[in-house]
């Protein structure tokens, strides 16, 4: 971005938004926006709370397991749909429906099936993330240059070699993009799961803060989650870029 011929660093626009937030907060114009500075003070405070540590651990546990299964099943299903036409016909429609469905409405049903505990939250995280990972992996496999597959066959590649030495690497940029998007959805999944089900951990904190109009705390917690999700996504994005560098010349 340049203003009047002067190059402005990208982080500058973030600073402008922070300033706007601060000003609106101080004007007390909109009551749901307390000044950013007081939110940041609360943020530091929350980070020291035992309750937050416990909530974060519980949530991280659900997030990690949900993501683990989402990646395992999603990548597997994407490969299957990409390579086997009948599997694609059978699953494709459902994966697309679930990818765009309002999954939050399913959570109460999950609760009936799996109870009020972590299992339901893990399954919620899984359901939020798995479909986009499946779709992206599928797209990646479909994009693999057919010449590479023929090349491997002419040199006598076994089925396992074809998957581990060609297909996986050729589809890796799309698989990583899918995981990155799945990750952000999984963070939503954790919070929505905890809010809707048993009101535990982070969900409980969110519920308490908003019910009691503790808006500084509410925004602080939101910011923490936001930074966590963006940080993870940036980390995957970094790996993605390194992979794109090689895959960018796919001919």
């Amino acid at each position, binding site marked *: 971005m340049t203003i009047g011929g002067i190059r402005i660093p990208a982080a500058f626009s973030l600073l402008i938004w922070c300033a706007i937030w601060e000003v609106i907060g101080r004007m007390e114009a909109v009551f749901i926006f307390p000044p950013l500075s007081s939110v940041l003070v609360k943020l530091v405070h929350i980070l020291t709370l035992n309750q937050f540590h416990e909530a974060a651990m519980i949530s991280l546990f659900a997030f990690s397991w949900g993501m683990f299964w989402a990646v395992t099943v999603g990548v597997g299903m994407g490969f299957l749909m990409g390579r086997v036409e009948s599997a694609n016909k059978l699953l494709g429609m459902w994966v697309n429906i679930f990818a765009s469905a309002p999954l939050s409405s399913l959570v109460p049903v999950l609760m009936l099936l799996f109870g009020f505990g972590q299992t339901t939250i893990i399954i919620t995280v899984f359901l939020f993330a798995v479909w986009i990972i499946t779709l992206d992996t599928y797209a990646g496999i479909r994009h693999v240059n057919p*010449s590479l597959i023929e*090349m491997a*066959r*002419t040199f*006598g590649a076994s089925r396992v070699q074809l998957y581990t*030495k*060609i297909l996986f*690497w050729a589809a890796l940029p799309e698989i990583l993009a899918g995981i990155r998007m799945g990750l952000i959805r999984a963070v939503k999944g954790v919070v929505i799961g905890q809010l809707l089900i048993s009101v535990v951990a982070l969900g409980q904190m969110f519920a308490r803060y908003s019910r009691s109009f503790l808006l500084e705390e509410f925004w602080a917690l939101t910011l923490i989650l936001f930074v966590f999700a963006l940080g993870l996504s940036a980390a995957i994005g970094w790996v993605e870029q390194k992979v794109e560098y*090689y895959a960018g010349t796919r*001919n």
Partner: protein
Amino acid sequence: MSTQPAIQPADPTTPSIVEVEGIGMIYPGGTVALEGVDLDFPTGEMTTLLGPSGCGKTTLLKIIAGLLEPTAGQVRINGTPVFGPGPERAFVFQDFALLPWATVLRNVAFGLELQGRDKAEREQIAQASIVKVGLGGFENAYPHELSGGMRQRVGLARALCVDAQVLLMDEPFSAVDEQTRRLFQEELLRLLGNENKTVIFVTHSIEEAVYVSDRIVLLSPRPGRVNRIVTTELERAGRTADEIRRQDAFLDTVEDIWQTLKEYLADERMTE
């Protein structure tokens, strides 16, 4: 009691390493790509499949490679019918088919890697092959850092590495600019001169076909059939590329083939 070996050594009475008999190919949907193709490819010769686009020349090459299954007929290598790819054949691809995430060295050694050879051994073989195609010093480069001509050298080095008797080349120079293409043709002849390989080469360029090959198979389009086989009688020994291209035999053969191809085009226009 006599036991017969599974694959017979090349029979001296049939000096053709590759035999194609009654090959037909009908694609799902009913397009007849090839019909009744009978061809022999003599050991150590360079044969070109030439024809306009749509004549099924690449389809025929992929059938010989074992990548496509014909709907009729069979392919024999050293007298034995084959039903898939095999180590006696190596393929050079039109779009190079290099792994973008692997270095030149790993790409060249990839055929050996798939065969399960250990790393030190396959890199040693690959290294020699890289030098042979003139890419010494580029072992650690990635394909996207190379020009089209250099990428195809990698593809060629990879095919030479596995030491197949038959080299199948699918329009290997079509994605390369004209200057590089001519240099590459010369080098290919020089390289193959020392290798004693049987080469089946697909191209749509008449001049390229006449320049590089001993025998040219002209395929007619829709359905692809063998129309004519032209034997080139060029004097290559001790002549420069330009001298070869100025020979009467070269020019006459190019003209002769052009006249035949023109007939196909005229026929096509009539039927349209």
